[in-house]
């Protein structure tokens, strides 16, 4: 489903070029639950953003569902984000003025769904994450865990084949983190491919496979090499 071939990403800071990703090739199959680990600043988020079509690689090619999305135009990328990918962020990224329901409806607004269909599906999605009695709440009336549930409901509402979560438990306590990870496991069992970025080994344990990133390159499990995760 995901096929990255020799992906690099560099930023130019003044005269110097910063090579954040330095040639990453990897494949993730449909239905997998993958964790990406690595020290802070190693390029995990950058990689996730490329996988999520929020960003383009400097060189290399990226096939998502057999499509070469590295050649896509902005508009096509927006459609891929809307239809095929669901994002979950560490900072939840909910719109503060919209209720939980309206936040979950957003991806369908851009998909052009009717009001009735949007509301129905948003309610279903919120029920799925256990927030059926919080639909009319504004984000600041919800706890961190509840906010992340709303974000997950929003990520899954357009029925994407891939859900990307960048440190989804980074702002949550352990107990809440477990509940959130259980949700991802449930979604994965229902067939959604899931990629989670984390630096917590407890979180990575939920995944079927762990990918390590170090200095913009894929690496071995540092524990096996006697190294240390952050």
């Amino acid at each position, binding site marked *: 489903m995901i096929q990255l071939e020799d992906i690099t990403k560099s930023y130019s800071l003044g005269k110097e070029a910063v090579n954040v990703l330095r040639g990453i090739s990897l494949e993730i199959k449909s239905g997998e639950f993958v964790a990406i680990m690595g020290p802070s600043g190693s390029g995990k988020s950058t990689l996730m953003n490329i996988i999520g079509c929020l960003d383009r690689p400097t060189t290399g090619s990226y096939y998502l569902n057999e499509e070469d999305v590295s050649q896509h135009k902005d508009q096509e990328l927006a459609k891929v984000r*809307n239809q095929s990918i669901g*994002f979950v962020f560490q900072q939840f990224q909910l719109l503060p*003025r919209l209720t939980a329901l309206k936040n979950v409806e957003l991806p369908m607004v851009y998909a052009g769904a009717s009001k009735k269909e949007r509301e129905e599906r948003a309610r279903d999605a919120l029920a799925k994450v256990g927030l059926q009695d919080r639909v009319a709440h504004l984000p600041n009336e919800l706890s961190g865990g509840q906010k992340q549930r709303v974000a997950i409901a929003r990520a899954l509402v357009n029925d994407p084949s891939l859900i990307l979560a960048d440190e989804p438990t980074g702002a949550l306590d352990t107990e809440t983190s477990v509940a959130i990870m259980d949700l991802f496991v449930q979604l994965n069992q229902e067939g959604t491919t899931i990629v989670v970025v984390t630096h917590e080994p407890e979180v990575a344990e939920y995944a079927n496979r762990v990918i390590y990133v170090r200095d913009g390159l894929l690496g071995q499990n540092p524990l096996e090499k006697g190294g240390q995760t952050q």
Partner: protein
Amino acid sequence: MSLWENIKMALMSVRAHKMRSILTMLGIIIGVAAVIVVVAIGQGGEAMLKSQIAGDGNSIEVFYQPSEEEMQQGKWEENPFTQEDIRQLEGIEKVSNVVASSSEFSTARLRDEEAETSITGINEAYLDVNQLKVEEGRSFTSADFLGGRRVAVVSAAMQEELFEGESPIGEIIRIGVQPVEVIGVLEKPTGLFAFGSVEAYIPWTSMRNMLGTSNYSQVTLQVQNADDIQPIGDRATTVLNQLHDTEDSYQVINMEEIAQGIGQVTTIMTTIIGSIAGISLLVGGIGVMNIMLVSVTERTREIGIRKSLGATRQQILLQFLVESIILTLIGGIIGIVLGAGTAYLVSFFADWPSLISWQVVLGAVLFSMLIGIAFGLLPANKASRLDPIDSLRYE
């Protein structure tokens, strides 16, 4: 995403910052209101002036104004309109009445009392067309005109002067040395600028017999249709100049020229004040642009979120463009209401008509939308170009 969705979203955002929105709209409100007031008062004034010049009852006066050359040739006449002239004028198509008269000043006497008065010899159409009504006694009959009877209708002022308010009906007064019977008294003129002057009206035929007046000094044409005033006036002057073998001595006021003149003045005024209003609208537009730019910066993260969820650049552009259009449109509508109210107040207190045409209202609505588009484009474009990753990271 539908336009309606965008409009609802924009209204929500405008409502979320009420104070800021109102202040942003202020320039547009003032500008539109100023335009509405100026145009309303200008058009009202123009209509009023035109109707005043056109005169009541679809009438037009014929002037006698010989050229210098003709004066030197001794062609000048004190009473330039002959009986034959009147007959010819009456023959012109669509002329409903030819009003002719000749005035002189004289002294009216009743026993020992004396009053300076104007004596106007009139033809049969005169009183009606000039809307002079006999209040007491009777008006003239055709027999009075045909027979040249020595009867007079006097003004209310003359009744005051000569009869000290007593009924003059049936009294014999002397005009010069000629005796005349008073048969009626005219209604007092009403209105702010109507001064009652001492006047007596007698049939023109009687005037000719009594005072030896040979011709008429004043002629006014009344036509059936207001639109015919100009062509019939022109026709009348042609006829008269031919009859008298003159170049251009008989003239009518050229209504079109005057209307054009008034139109020019009001156009200049409207342009001047309109450009001031235009500047206000420009400043208002810049205000809208400024606030929209602030709004885009403030909502950078929102834009990032929307993009991550699949919003295209066009959708973001439309969202912010609709928002600035809504801002200026609401401002424009408030401006129209305010302007219409002010125009109404002005016309109420200054007794000056104001006209608000639907064209002006529509124009104001469209123009404020145009400002919204023109000044919203830059911020909306900026929003649409934001990088989603940077935006999501924005604090």
